[in-house]
């Protein structure tokens, strides 16, 4: 009998594990990935999804099984078994989640590092040389890692000003001001962000990146688009009545098209 239940437990955990992996690879819930750190993000997402599915389905199955298996049959009056605890069992289910959580933590540290979260902040290369050291905060992707594969090109500096209820982009090179973000594919963009009034947030779901735009506190965000196309920019921090309408687009072009756009719009000769 104990042998049988051990076999049953083993097979059901195996089915559960395989099922979790199957679901995570067959249920796709993310939009297209269009930046260099998006595939890294998706990798973490998948691992979390696998673990989540296994835990959720396992726990739900246990609860439902218990409710059916141990339900009170008509006419039954007695008590259940007299079981107050089991030290080794309790140690087991303290240790296993602790290990899982530790694994997730270390793994997401690695992901975080690969996404540029641990890099020292890049300085503002936009031209003006400030004697004072400026306090700048960065989000994920604010480091120079992504430029390793695009070494031949320096990052493209763009300044973002957010206000109720618009994003305004300024290209120092060419002094272009635009309501939409135009960037070339495959080149690192260095976005320096400031808010004129309240807190806003810059979010491109396809880039898997978000960073608050904070009044009185510049923030920066680096990213490298990997797909041409048109992606939404969404404000993700409640900023007033028209918050829901505070949307724009990022247009990722081939380098030549981007250069043409730059040339056509710039106020100075480049």
């Amino acid at each position, binding site marked *: 009998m104990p042998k049988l239940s051990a076999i049953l437990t083993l097979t059901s955990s195996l089915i559960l594990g395989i099922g979790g992996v199957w679901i995570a690879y067959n249920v796709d819930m993310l939009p297209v990935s269009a930046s260099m750190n998006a595939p890294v993000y998706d990798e973490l997402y998948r691992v979390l999804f696998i673990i989540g599915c296994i835990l959720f389905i396992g726990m739900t199955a246990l609860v439902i099984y*218990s409710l059916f298996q141990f339900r009170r049959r008509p006419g039954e009056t007695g008590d259940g078994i007299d079981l*107050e605890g089991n030290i080794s069992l*309790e140690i087991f289910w303290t240790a296993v989640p602790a290990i899982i*959580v530790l694994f*997730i933590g270390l793994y997401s540290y690695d*992901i975080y590092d690969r996404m540029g979260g641990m890099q020292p902040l890049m300085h503002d290369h936009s031209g003006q040389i400030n004697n004072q050291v400026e306090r700048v905060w960065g989000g994920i992707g604010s480091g120079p890692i992504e430029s390793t594969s695009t070494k031949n090109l320096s990052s493209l500096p763009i300044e973002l000003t957010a206000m109720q209820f618009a994003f305004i982009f300024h290209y120092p090179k060419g002094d272009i001001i635009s309501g939409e973000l135009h960037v070339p594919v495959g080149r690192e963009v260095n976005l320096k962000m400031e808010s004129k009034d309240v807190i806003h947030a810059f979010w491109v779901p396809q880039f898997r990146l978000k960073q608050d735009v904070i009044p009185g506190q510049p923030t920066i965000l680096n990213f490298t688009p990997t797909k041409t196309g048109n992606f939404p920019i*969404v404000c993700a921090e409640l900023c007033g009545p028209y*918050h829901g309408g505070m949307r724009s687009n990022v247009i990722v072009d081939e380098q030549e098209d981007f250069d043409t756009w730059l040339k056509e719009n710039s106020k100075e000769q480049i």
Partner: protein
Amino acid sequence: MTISLKPGNTPPEKLQPTGWLKYLSFSLDHKVIGLQYLVCGFFFYLIGGSLAGAIRVELTSPLSDFMPREVYNQVLTLHGTIMIFLWIVPVVNGAFGNYLIPFYVGARDMAFPRLNAVAFWLIPPSGLMLITSYFINGAAQSGWTAYPPLSITTPAAGQIIWILSVLLLGGSSIFGGINFIATILKLRRPGLKLMQLPMYCWAMLGTSILVVLSTPVLAGTLILLSFDIVAHTGFFNPSLGGNVIVYQHLFWFYSHPAVYIMVLPAFGLVSEILPIHSRKPLFGYTTMVFSIMGIVVLGLVVWAHHMFTSGTPPWMRLFFTIATAFIAVPTGIKFFNWVATLWGGKISLNAAMLFSCGFIINFVLGGITGVALAQVPFDVHVHDTYFVVAHFHYIVYGGSVFVIFSSIYHWFPKFTGKMLNENLGRFHFIITFIGFNLCFAPQHWLGLNGMPRRVAEYDPQFQLINQISSVGALLMALSTLPFLWNILQSILYGDEAGDNPWNALTPEWLTSSPPPVENWEGEAPLVLEPYGYGEKDSTKTQEQLK
């Protein structure tokens, strides 16, 4: 103030008035105060729920066409504030805490009965004030988080009333917290050890520690914010040199623990309900106690996970990631212990049991998405999106509200002496469970795919999923009808419950239903084994009951 264990020295004001009028009076009886909290909280729940309905109606179409955009933000703010500060916190703490804790420690009342009544009577006026602000000059519209500078730049009247009302409600919960700590530690019946208390006492002790440590921080923060609004100081106002991030740190130092203030008591209540209806001892009492204290300690040091996109330094993000994820360990222990409590039991599938098991399933999902959100790289994509809305409703609705319903089904016979109709109760559970999951599960997808939260208008590609979610919300709204009908019907014509319809061992069941003013006619019973169910003990059980 001490309360004698001997009957007969009730303070005179405690005895009057009688009948249902006592619920509208400044009663000092902890049972009356508990029910006052419960009914008052439910009243605000209906209001907060109607506001949620209005939000869901607005979101059935991508345009902002059902109400003006400012009004949407006011409704959103009121909904969040009411649900947290006027429904869940007062009910899981104030209502059940007041009703049950004195029974559990073997006392005839709370340690400070007058403070207790004051704590309750702060709630109705501040709640009404909050709601009337909507009609005066427009309610606050910067969300329940009231982040500056938005909260400084939106119309001041509503925001100031919001601050005042939250301050009063915070005061109320501090008074309650002090009272619970004093009652549990000081009014225990001689001979009753801490480790013999029912688990809900431990949960309330932990919660009250959180309340007393963190609520004053919120109060101080909101006072500074009100200075910024009315006196134009610059604590948080960047145009006057203030720092908006400091507000976020202070705010979340309270508001993250607030999540545990809403779920820890719920954990305690579930720990009372499961053993009785599965006729088994609570599994792993000692680890349950330690896991509560673990949650309290960790709960105080994880607040900055709400600020991963605000621009915190990398080391801080890492620390808060690890600390947050580790809360899953003590929380997981509790869930495994509950399942082990069910294992091998003789389970009655009544409404109380169903709601508690529904809670376990919902909360596991909310907890899993919580661990995911704790990971900085994951959070930067979904922060401030519908993924988060889904996550926290799985915690607060799937967690706390399910437990509140479970508790009402469980303790209603004690409150009133009447039984609720079980079939109606099961029906209520099924509709609520389906409606809840239909409403909130699809919102995970919305968030992952690009729908931010707190928006009245959205990208048309999200319309279908939003409509599904709204249908779920409609089901949830409808599910209150069988519940209300059941309550009404049972109060008027319900079967007599008798003293102990569940054949339970915890002390509140060892007196009449409803209990007399001083809880027990004679000497209070000394219950050393509140969970002494189980085959071997059944003879002893029967003896104890007599």
